[in-house]
């Protein structure tokens, strides 16, 4: 009887973690917050006011967009394959939720040292890369399902774009794994914080490559050629409307949360901030308090949100500064510049690890 009760309590607690706090509800509200930040920065950079009248300075605008889209009529073109046409938004949303489960926001299982995400296990970095490729595949299929010439051309372009930016993304994400020798995102982040600052210099180039590649993965200007507003109307999204469109927009925002989250975890030191200060009171006592008591539950998410907000602002600035490239320029730029750069950064890290650091006596 007691075991059954414990099992039920355990289930409820796990359900709370997955569904509410570091799980779906938290990620969705974070997604809406980041879209607000993105639109506001984009507008202010253009000397515009941006959304103003919904909630404090328009902070509820993304929520209102989402709710309105939910309440609109849902159309399916007759020629489109109905079942798969309806499945695409749901698959996109589920995949992006799963991706967000790996981010170490709050210490989920104290057994393993360092903050662990909900689903963190050894080798989850490989799974993350596989799912991001899967998302690219689903987007291409979505274009073909919509049976609209704009949709097909948009899907073909997305395919070219994502394939040519998959390799730099993978190489940029794998570099921290080389440094720390583990394939679990959370343990990589934990070991990076323990290492000496010399290693951090090696991560600067992969961080830049990752930002550019994630801008391409998210199909934002200057890489938003697939749903370029002026050429082919909204690319592969042209036939979706109502609930399906709402789900797709939510999936895109959650992917933004995930990209910013991975950038903070692997390159900016994850949810640790005060621990880096050399004073013993911070790095030792505070780290212990945060790791064990409820203080961590508040402090870690706040730091995580602060750092990924920084990354979102950077991505949004990229959006305002550049014009949109043609698909052939992007593919040429992808293969001629990004892939060699990524290979170079990997070689740099290897040379540093094997030769330079032992000579300089860096541990």
């Amino acid at each position, binding site marked *: 009887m007691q075991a059954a009760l414990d099992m039920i309590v355990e289930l409820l607690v796990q359900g709370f973690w997955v569904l509410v706090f570091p799980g779906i509800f938290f990620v969705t509200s974070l997604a809406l917050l980041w879209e607000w930040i993105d639109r506001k920065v984009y507008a202010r950079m253009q000397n515009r006011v941006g959304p103003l009248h919904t909630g404090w300075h328009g902070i509820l605008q993304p929520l209102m967009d989402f709710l309105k889209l939910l309440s609109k009529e849902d159309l399916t073109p007759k*020629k489109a394959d109905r079942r798969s046409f309806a499945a695409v938004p749901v698959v996109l949303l589920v995949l992006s939720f799963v991706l967000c489960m790996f981010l170490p926001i709050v210490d989920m299982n104290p057994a393993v040292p360092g903050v662990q995400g909900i689903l963190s296990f050894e080798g989850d970095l490989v799974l993350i890369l596989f799912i991001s490729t899967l998302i690219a595949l689903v987007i291409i299929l979505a274009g073909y399902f919509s049976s609209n010439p704009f949709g097909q051309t948009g899907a073909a372009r997305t395919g070219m774009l994502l394939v040519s930016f998959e390799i730099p993304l993978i190489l940029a994400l794998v570099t921290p794994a080389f440094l720390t020798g583990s394939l679990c995102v959370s343990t990589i982040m934990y070991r990076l914080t323990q290492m000496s600052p010399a290693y951090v210099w090696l991560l600067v180039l992969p961080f830049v490559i990752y930002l550019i590649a994630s801008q391409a993965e998210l199909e934002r200007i200057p890489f938003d050629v697939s749903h370029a507003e002026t050429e082919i109307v909204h690319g592969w999204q042209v036939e979706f409307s109502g609930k399906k469109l709402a789900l797709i927009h939510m999936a895109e925002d959650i992917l933004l949360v995930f990209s910013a989250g991975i950038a903070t975890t692997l390159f900016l030191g994850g949810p640790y901030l005060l621990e880096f200060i050399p004073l013993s009171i911070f790095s030792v006592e505070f780290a212990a308090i945060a790791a064990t008591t409820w203080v961590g539950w508040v402090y870690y998410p706040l730091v995580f949100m602060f750092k990924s907000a920084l990354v979102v602002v950077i991505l949004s600035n990229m959006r305002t500064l550049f014009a*949109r490239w043609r698909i052939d320029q992007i593919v040429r730029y992808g293969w001629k510049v990004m892939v060699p750069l990524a290979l170079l950064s990997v070689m740099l890290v290897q040379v540093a690890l094997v030769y330079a650091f032992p000579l300089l006596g860096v541990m």
Partner: protein
Amino acid sequence: MTSTSNRTVVIPPRVSIPIGPQHPALKEPAMFKLTVEGELIVDAEVNIGYNHRGVEKLAESNTHIQNLYLLARICGICSATHNGNYAQAVESAAEVEIPERARYIRTLIWELDRIHSHILWLGVAFHEVGFDTAFMYTWRDREVAMDMLESISGNRVHHDMNTVGGVRRDVPDELVPKLLRGFDKLKERMRYYRDVVLHEKTFWDRVAGVGILETDVAKKMGAVGPTARGSNVPVDVRFNDPTQAYVPMMDTGDFEMILNDRCDVAGRTIVRVEETIQAIEMCSWLVKNMPDGPIRERVRPRIQPNEVLARHEAPRGELIHYLVTNGTDKPERIKVRAPTHANWVSMAHTLKGNYLADAPIILAAIDPCYSCTDRVVVVDADEQKMELVPLDVLRVRANKWYKENPRRDE
């Protein structure tokens, strides 16, 4: 990218992308049928008949004064040119000399209209290429020109400044210092945008080497305005056939025609930006030495029978009004040839051989103003062996495709 050189390789599906009649790239309804091979445009076909409003038939049942307002509404952006040119046509038909000050004010409104039209085009070109920040900045600075036009003529877009025999409103003297300050601010902003156009790499990549129109082809196809001047064709009515206040302005000799030999979209962009700066200098010259005196001449509404060809350099090219009067106060025949109308043949030629992603920027490069034109042109695919689908079949196929995607699935 499949290589289109050897034919034996599988030929990519020939997809026909209908841009329009409703498309965010086009501010007005026009149907462009681009037959695309992979990403390369093989065949371009323009159908702009959506805008035909029968203006010429309507004009024959209006008096000259009413026609001034009707013809101004042909095109929203270059409304001052249609208005001014028709007034000029009626005056030369009646063989009446209008006061000197009226000439200066009419030319000032023309040049201000060119400034606001070119800045508007620059913003739309930035938008076509996805450079939305610059699009916002240019349109914000255009507001300075719009405010000036509004303070002179009372309306931002349709000014209706001219009447038969002169101008309807005067430029008060206390407005002159404000105008001069506005011109300096505009000139300084335009110099900034010239640097942006020349040095912003992502914009320059999208514009350089795109939409090539060689000089002799431009001449043969009858291109006009900045599109022709961007391919080194000396076509400018202000210098070749000056009327109104352009005559004294050309005598001063410190303005000369702006030409560019790049023959591509970048060339046309540079010509337009340089022309805007020149237009600003022209405006300040006009405002500085504008003579005083009356601004209108009494003209009897019944115009003597006469046959007149009035030409004027609109922002987009050479505008022609062929007016025939028959002694009553209504025109016997008025033929309006808008500048964009002449650029269709050359534009359809430049579309071929470019990427689909370049189509909007090439379409925007001639600064199309469909409301001025309501005609259609078809360009055949070049001598590739592919079977060319005739126009009617394409239209039937497009309608069939529209029918297959109704709004509701039964």
